[in-house]
C-alpha cells in the first residue's frame, strides 16, 4: 500500500533562514507527490506537485520541493522563510486502485513556525 511519512511534528526556523519540511514516501510504480498548506481555520491549499520531469519542482509563495527517487523523499524547501509561512504543511501521494481510479494518502502534517 502507498504511504507517506512526515517525520517531524514541528519545525522551527528563524525568519530569513532557509527552511526544509521533510516527507518520505512508499509507493509501487511512479509516484505522484503533492504538498499542501493549511492556515488556521482554513482548508488546505495546493502548493506544488511532482508528476514527472525535473526533480526540482517550483510552486506557490516561493516554495520548492526536491524529488529524490533513491531516497524516496520529497522535501519541501524555501530559501528564506517569512513569518507568514507559519502554518501546517501536508505531504500527499496519489494511490492508484486496480480499477484505474485513485485516491490520495496524506501525511500527518508538520507545523512550521517561523520566528521573527
Amino acid at each position, binding site marked *: 500500500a502507498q504511504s507517506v511519512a*512526515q517525520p517531524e511534528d514541528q519545525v522551527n526556523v528563524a525568519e530569513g533562514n532557509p527552511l526544509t519540511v521533510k516527507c518520505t514516501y512508499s509507493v509501487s510504480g511512479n509516484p505522484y507527490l503533492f504538498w499542501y498548506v493549511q492556515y488556521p481555520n482554513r*482548508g488546505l491549499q*495546493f502548493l506544488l*506537485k511532482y508528476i514527472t520531469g525535473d526533480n526540482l519542482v517550483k510552486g506557490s509563495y516561493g516554495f520548492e520541493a526536491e524529488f529524490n527517487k533513491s531516497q524516496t523523499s520529497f522535501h519541501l524547501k524555501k530559501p528564506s522563510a517569512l513569518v507568514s509561512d507559519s502554518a501546517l504543511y501536508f505531504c500527499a501521494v496519489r494511490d492508484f486502485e486496480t480499477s484505474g481510479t485513485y*485516491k490520495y494518502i*496524506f501525511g*500527518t502534517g508538520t507545523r512550521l513556525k517561523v520566528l521573527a
Partner: protein
Amino acid sequence: NAGVTQTPKFRVLKTGQSMTLLCAQDMNHEYMYWYRQDPGMGLRLIHYSVGEGTTAKGEVPDGYNVSRLKKQNFLLGLESAAPSQTSVYFCASSTGLAGGSHEQYFGPGTRLTVT
C-alpha cells in the same frame, strides 16, 4: 467560481442525533472526497466518489454514509452521531481526467462537535 463550498460551517450535535454535511463544487470535477482532520492524525479519508452515482470507502468509513446523486454535490451523513465523530470535516474535489491537473481543491471545513 466559488470552488468547493461546505454547509454548515459549524454544528453541535447530541449523541445519537443525525445530520448531513453538504459539499458542492462548481469546477465540473469528477472526483470528490470527504476527510476528517483530528490533532496528530492528519487527514483521513472517509469516503470518496469517482463520478456521479458512485461511492467508495476510504480509511475510516464506519459510522458515515455518502451519496453522489449529482456530479456537483457530495453528501456526508451521520446516522447516529457519537463523541468520537467530533472532528473537522473537509470536502475536496479533483478532476479525474487523465491529462488534467492532479491536485485537490478543498472546502473551508465543517467543525462538528458531538456531546
